[in-house]
Every structure is written in structure tokens, then in C-alpha cells.
């Protein structure tokens, strides 16, 4: 490749410049194209290849939900007034008429009852928010369990984690805006968490709320965050996220013809452009049907915010559930001993609300590990290679087991967030659920880890079995000499490739560094590496496969009549 390999000659350029389209449409298109360079963009992106698999859709769903959130949210801003100024409600909802409330709540009610289509848009916005975070979470689980976060995509994983956090922030700030009792309770918990931080907590709370909770500032402040700062950050992060997807190219599941150096799939134009465009409207349609038929956040039930009442069944939206749950999980007393204590100080003592602070630790650790997991795993495995072919989850048993353990940990906290509803709906004792969950939060992830790992290894062994002996065909044959045998069919080449094309590295052992020394960190790494890789099932090798084929041929030769089989069995018994 030298610099002289120009795509077009000078003459061709001149010809292109002098090109005069014949039709009016052609002239307009040409005019725009010469100024915008659309041809180049379409040439570049239109031919971009994406692989196809249903698990790849969740990122898309998240993106489309976000678009729907922006559209519906913009509609809501036309009526919603985030003011904490007091007003008297005189809208059409009778059970609240004449009550004193904040303008924020009054306008949220106005949106629900007096603006045409307002309730639908509010519900669409809320359902889209639930879907947005759900799609992000499932997308993230897909990326984790298939190992798509590995080199070169580590940074994009971090961008994805940041997007998830931003999604939670967007959700929580939005949930707090209508200023009814439910959202006020949520803010009160945030206030309590901040105040639990020793020494600076009170100042942080006063800073956020502009004085003592609830003050008159917090709703307008959250509004600015909710409609400007956070969406802008999400937009920027989405742009970076997608740019990196284009740069890295999309990952693909293992299969014949798929290598680390290619992408097998369809081009954006026209296949994916049409598919994605259509899918956007499917997502929009599904959300619209849900929003039109299922009530969400019936804020007229909760009444104007008042710091004194708390209502049964007060819960955050699902994605904040684990935060709520871990607080419900934490005991305030162990036996007779309170966990809260006071640090004596010259100014009278600072109380340390450990029952509020300790639960924040597992959440913080969980999110921290989530952010840096690509590097943790790469360090343990010592894997420095690029990966564009995804792992089938069973082929990375330890990672899959760690994922399942984390999901279990999350789900126990999540379930605890709704322990009261679990109690009433399954006729259980709230206390028992809480006590059992306190045990399960430690034991559950371990059980999940062991079980998942065993299931993965079993599935891998089943894959080996399939490769070596084929699928049971469900046809029983009786041989001339009376023996019964089940027929096996060989897997197709396509399936075979998928079943054998994976790596199952053995534990590497400690590696000496450049000076020939084995450091203590390296020993730790080697031990973790041993733990990560010790239980493994190797893929079927070429030799094993050929041998199995050979055996098959012998098998066919077995049909040599009664005497031959007898002779063989006699020989075998000797």
C-alpha cells in the first residue's frame, strides 16, 4: 500500500463535479450530497455489518426507551411546574379538592386529570423509565455472561456501567418530582442516608435540601438534574457507547465461518436500518399499549407530601428496590446491643447510624466490582488477547457462576425491598422473611455459585457427549441377533463447530516476572487463576473426534451376526 493508491483519478473527480442530474429530485439530492457528503456516510455506515441474535436487542430496547423518554418527558415539561410553593388544589380530582399542596403536586395532578392525553403521557414516561433500566440491566447481564466486556471492550463496559448509574439517577430524580407522600418518603430516606454519615452528613443534607428537610428547594433542583444534566450526560455516554461499538465492531456468537477477524451478519443498509427502525416502533407500540391499559404511579392516592405519614406498601421503583431492601435487611440491634453509637466530641457527640451506613457497603462494593470487573478477570486469567467471539456462558463456568452469585445477592436485596408484600401475598410472617433473608444474603450466593458452576460443567460434558456420540435419535433398533440399540445421529457441521470451538485454558501457575522472581501478588493471582480454571471440561479435540468416527464405523461393523457379537463379548469378559 503506497500513497499513490488513490481511489479516484483526477479525471474522475472532475467528471463527478461536472455531473448534472437529469431530474429535479436528483438535482436536490446532488446539491445536498455535495455539501453534506451523505454518500460517504452511507458508504461507511450502510455497509457496516452486524451479527444477528435475539440477545443483542436489549441494548437497542434501552436506546429506544430513552428516545421515548425524551419525547414523553418533553410533553410533560409543558405543564409540570416544579415549584414547592403552596397552592390550593381546585382541579377535577374530587377527593383532593380544597387541599393545600405544592404547585409541583398540583400540576402533576393537572397533567393526570385536566390535560388531554396527559395521564397517558405520564404513564408512558414512567413505563418507559422502568423498561429503560430493565433493558440496560439485561443488556449488561448479556454482555457479562457472554464475556463481551473482554479486550478490547473494557472501556465500553465502564461507559455502560456509567449509563446504568445515570439511568438510576434519572429514575430516582424523576420519581421524586411529583412531591406526593410516596416520593417524599424516598427523599426522606436519601436525607437519612446522608445524615448518617458522621460529621459531614448534616451539612450534605442541608446543602442538597437548601436547609432542613424538606425545605423549599429540593424539587426545583432535582428537576434541573432530571430534565437537563442527567439526560445530557446519558446522551453523551450513549454517543460514546455507540461510537465504540462501531470502532470495535459487534461481537458474535461462535459458529462456522465466524472468526476473531470477521463479523458475519447483515449490513446496516438496508437490512438493519429497516429492522431497527421497525423495532423502534414495536417497542413504542408495546409501551403505548402498556401505558394505555396499566396504571402506574397513581400519585393521586398518596396525597400531598407531609413528613409525618408513611404508607404501607411504600416502595421505590424496581431499580432502587435493592437499596430499599438492604436497609430493611439490616438489623438495628444485635440481641440487646444497639448498633448505633455516638462518638463523643467537644460539641456534644456525633452519632454514627451504622444500621444505615453498613448497608451502603455491599451496594458500593457491588457497583465498584461491576465497574472494574474486566480488569479483575483479565488479571486472574492472564488473558491479554482480543476477543470478538462471545463465550457461551457454560464455557466460562467460573465467570457464569460469579454472575449467578451476584444476581442472587442482588435478588435477595431486591426481594427484601418488597418483604411486606411477599408476607401478605404468600401468607408468611414478615419477621421470618427478614430473618431468613439475613441468612440467605450470605449463603444464597455461595449456593448459587456452586450450583451454577456444576450446571455449566454438566452442560459442557453433555456437549462433549453430543460431539462424540451424537444425539439420541429416539429410534430403537433390534439387531438380527436380538440386541437392542438406540440410533444416534451425528450433529451437523454447523452445530459441531459451535460445540467444539471454545477455549478451556488450564490453570497457568505462577509466572516469574522480568527479574525471574515470583512476587507475592503473582502467587495470589496464580491461586485465583487455579480457582478460576481448575474445574474444566476440555473441548473435543480433532483426534478424539476422529476416534469417535472410527468407533462409529466399528459400530456399523458390529452387525456381524450373533456369533460375532458373542465372540466379542466372550473376549471382553476374559
Amino acid at each position: 500500500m503506497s500513497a499513490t493508491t488513490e481511489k479516484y483519478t483526477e479525471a474522475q473527480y472532475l467528471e463527478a463535479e461536472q455531473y448534472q442530474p437529469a431530474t429535479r429530485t436528483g438535482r436536490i439530492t446532488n446539491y445536498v450530497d455535495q455539501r453534506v457528503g451523505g454518500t460517504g456516510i452511507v458508504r461507511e455506515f450502510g455497509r457496516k455489518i452486524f451479527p444477528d441474535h435475539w440477545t443483542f436487542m436489549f441494548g437497542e430496547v434501552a436506546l429506544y426507551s430513552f428516545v421515548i423518554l425524551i419525547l414523553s418527558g418533553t410533553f410533560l415539561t409543558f405543564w409540570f411546574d416544579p415549584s414547592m410553593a403552596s397552592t390550593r388544589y381546585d382541579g377535577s380530582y374530587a377527593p383532593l379538592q380544597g387541599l393545600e399542596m405544592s404547585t409541583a403536586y398540583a400540576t402533576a395532578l393537572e397533567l393526570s386529570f385536566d390535560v388531554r392525553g396527559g395521564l397517558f403521557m405520564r404513564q408512558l414516561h414512567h413505563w418507559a423509565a422502568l423498561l429503560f433500566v430493565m433493558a440496560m440491566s439485561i443488556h449488561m447481564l448479556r454482555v457479562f455472561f457472554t464475556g463481551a466486556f473482554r479486550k478490547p471492550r473494557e472501556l465500553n463496559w465502564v461507559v455502560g456501567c456509567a449509563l446504568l448509574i445515570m439511568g438510576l439517577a434519572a429514575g430516582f430524580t424523576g420519581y421524586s418530582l411529583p412531591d406526593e407522600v410516596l416520593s417524599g418518603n424516598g427523599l426522606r430516606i436519601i436525607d437519612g442516608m446522608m445524615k448518617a454519615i458522621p460529621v459531614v452528613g448534616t451539612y450534605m443534607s442541608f446543602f442538597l435540601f437548601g436547609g432542613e428537610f424538606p425545605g423549599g428547594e429540593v424539587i426545583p433542583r432535582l428537576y434541573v438534574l432530571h430534565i437537563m444534566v442527567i439526560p445530557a450526560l446519558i446522551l453523551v455516554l450513549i454517543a460514546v457507547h455507540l461510537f465504540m461499538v462501531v470502532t470495535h465492531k459487534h461481537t458474535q456468537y461462535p459458529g462456522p465461518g465466524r472468526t476473531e477477524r470477521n463479523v458475519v451478519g447483515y449490513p446496516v443498509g438496508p437490512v438493519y436500518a429497516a429492522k431497527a427502525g421497525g423495532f423502534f416502533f414495536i417497542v413504542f407500540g408495546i409501551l403505548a399499549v402498556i401505558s394505555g391499559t396499566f396504571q402506574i404511579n397513581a400519585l393521586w392516592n398518596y396525597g400531598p407530601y407531609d413528613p409525618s405519614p408513611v404508607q404501607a406498601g411504600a416502595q421505590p421503583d424496581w431499580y432502587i428496590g435493592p437499596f430499599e431492601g438492604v436497609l430493611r435487611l439490616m438489623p438495628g440491634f444485635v440481641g440487646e446491643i444497639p448498633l448505633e453509637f455516638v462518638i463523643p466530641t467537644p460539641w456534644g457527640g456525633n452519632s454514627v447510624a451504622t444500621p444505615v451506613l453498613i448497608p451502603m457497603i455491599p451496594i458500593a462494593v457491588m457497583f465498584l466490582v461491576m465497574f472494574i470487573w474486566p480488569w479483575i478477570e483479565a488479571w486472574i486469567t492472564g488473558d491479554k488477547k482480543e476477543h470478538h467471539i462471545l463465550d457461551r456462558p457454560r464455557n466460562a463456568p467460573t465467570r457464569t457462576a460469579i454472575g449467578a452469585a451476584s444476581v442472587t445477592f442482588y435478588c435477595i436485596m431486591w426481594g427484601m425491598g418488597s418483604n411486606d408484600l411477599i408476607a401478605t401475598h404468600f401468607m408468611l410472617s414478615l419477621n421470618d422473611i427478614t430473618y431468613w433473608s439475613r441468612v440467605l444474603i450470605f449463603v444464597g450466593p455461595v449456593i448459587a455459585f456452586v450450583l451454577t458452576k456444576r450446571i455449566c460443567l454438566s452442560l459442557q460434558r453433555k456437549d462433549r457427549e453430543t460431539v462424540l456420540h451424537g444425539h439420541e435419535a429416539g429410534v430403537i433398533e433390534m439387531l438380527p441377533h436380538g440386541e437392542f440399540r438406540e440410533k444416534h445421529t451425528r450433529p451437523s457441521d454447523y452445530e459441531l463447530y459451535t460445540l467444539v470451538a471454545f477455549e478451556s485454558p488450564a490453570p497457568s501457575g505462577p509466572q516469574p516476572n522480568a527479574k525471574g522472581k515470583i512476587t507475592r501478588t503473582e502467587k495470589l493471582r496464580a491461586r485465583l487463576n487455579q480457582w478460576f480454571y481448575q474445574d474444566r471440561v476440555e473441548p473435543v479435540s480433532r483426534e478424539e473426534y476422529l476416534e469417535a468416527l472410527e468407533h462409529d464405523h466399528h459400530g456399523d461393523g458390529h452387525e456381524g451376526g450373533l456369533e460375532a457379537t458373542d465372540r466379542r463379548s466372550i473376549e471382553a469378559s476374559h
Partner: protein
Amino acid sequence: MKALSQKRRHPFAGVALLLLGLLITGGLYAAATTINQAQASQEADGYSAADVDEGERLFVANCATCHGINAEGTDAGPSLIGVGAASVDFQVGTGRMPMQMHGPQAQEKPRQFNDEQTMQLAAYVASLGAGPAVPDDEYLDVDQGDPARGGELFRINCAMCHNAAAAGGALTEGKYAPSLHGVEARHIYGAMVTGPQNMPVFSDSNIPPEDKRDIIAFLKTYDSQGTPGGFSLGFLGPVSEGLFIWTGGLAVLIAPWSG
């Protein structure tokens, strides 16, 4: 008077005085309680003696096993003396009593006694001692109530257990506050004045009868208005919404791909 003043230093004078004092207080107390009882039986809306007798027969046959033959209570059930007609009307009228089995609390179930029998049982229990009477119709007339004020009272006094949308909620150790949807006005009122199961009593000095009527008016408005936004998902708020998006929502999204 001379005799009295002479005998005031008599060795038994102190004892006599004490006896006199006790007699007077005792007599007054007895008089007062009978007056109270008389008032109570008047309040109990003229239950006839026949009602009381029939009620006693029903009581002995169906309730005495746990509450004792004279309703004095046993280890298995509390004394019913002084619980009033409203208690019977609520507990028996909603089918909670007779209890199906012992458990964290009595469950609502199809009622075992008809209106007349319930009234007779109430008459008997009311005859045992003063207690809250079955509410006057005046306080059950929701048209006279103010739902907005009732809603405010409901959110302050009731929603912490019964849920903002009156869908019910959990209490400790398997006990729970039931849903109030579709509960009859007299039973809502009865529950407030008698505090059944784990519910506190909201006496008339705490929530006056007019306010109780407002609360009932709010609950009835709530029942009749339906759900403006579509299916309610059990009125349980974010948990059922989250469950819905993770089950129904997810299933609908994946469905097109399963073809």
C-alpha cells in the same frame, strides 16, 4: 348531736366512719354503673329480651368454646364483656368469627350467621356490659361525608397500615391490615370504634363520628371512581409495576423473536 359528739372518741368510731365512707362510695359507684348500663342498653337500640335470649343460645352453641360459657374468656379467646354490639357486628358480620382456626389473626370468610342472628348475638354481648354500639345510620350516610377531608384523615390515620390506596399491608409475624375495598360502611365504622385484631381503637374523642363518616365517604368514593389509568395491578404501587415490566413487559418484547 350531743350523743354523736360524745361518742366520737368511741373505740369503734373510726371503724364506723370507714364503713360509712365505703358504703357511700360503693353505693354511688353501683348507682353510677347501673345508670351507665341503663344508658348502654338504651343505646343498644332496644334489643328485646327475646333477642338477648336467642343471642345467648347462639352464643353458647357457637362461641362459648373459646370465649367461655358466660363470655368471661378462656385461654383460647378473650372476654367479651364490654366489647359492645359493634364488635359482634364487625367480627361476626364479616365472617371473621367464629374463627376457622387459630392463627396470627382471624381471617375474613363467608359469614356463618345471617343478619338477624348477628343482631341477636350482638344483643346478647351488649347485654353483658357497656361497649360501643352498632353505628347510627346517620354516620354511615356517605352522601353527608366529605371525601377530601376523609382522604386526608385516612392518609394520616389509616394509610400506614392499610396502604394509601386502601389495598392493605403487612404487620408483624403474619398479621396484616386487610384491604378496605368493598368493605361495608358499617364494618369500617365498627372496626374504627372497636379496634379488631391488631387495629387500634379510634374512639369518638380521637376521631369524632362525623370524621369517621368522612373517612368512609373517601373509601366509598375511591371504590366507585375506578382506576383512571387502567388496570390497577392490585393497587400495590411500584412493586407490582416492577414485577409487571419484568414479566409481562419482557415476555412481550422477546415474543417477536421466538418465531
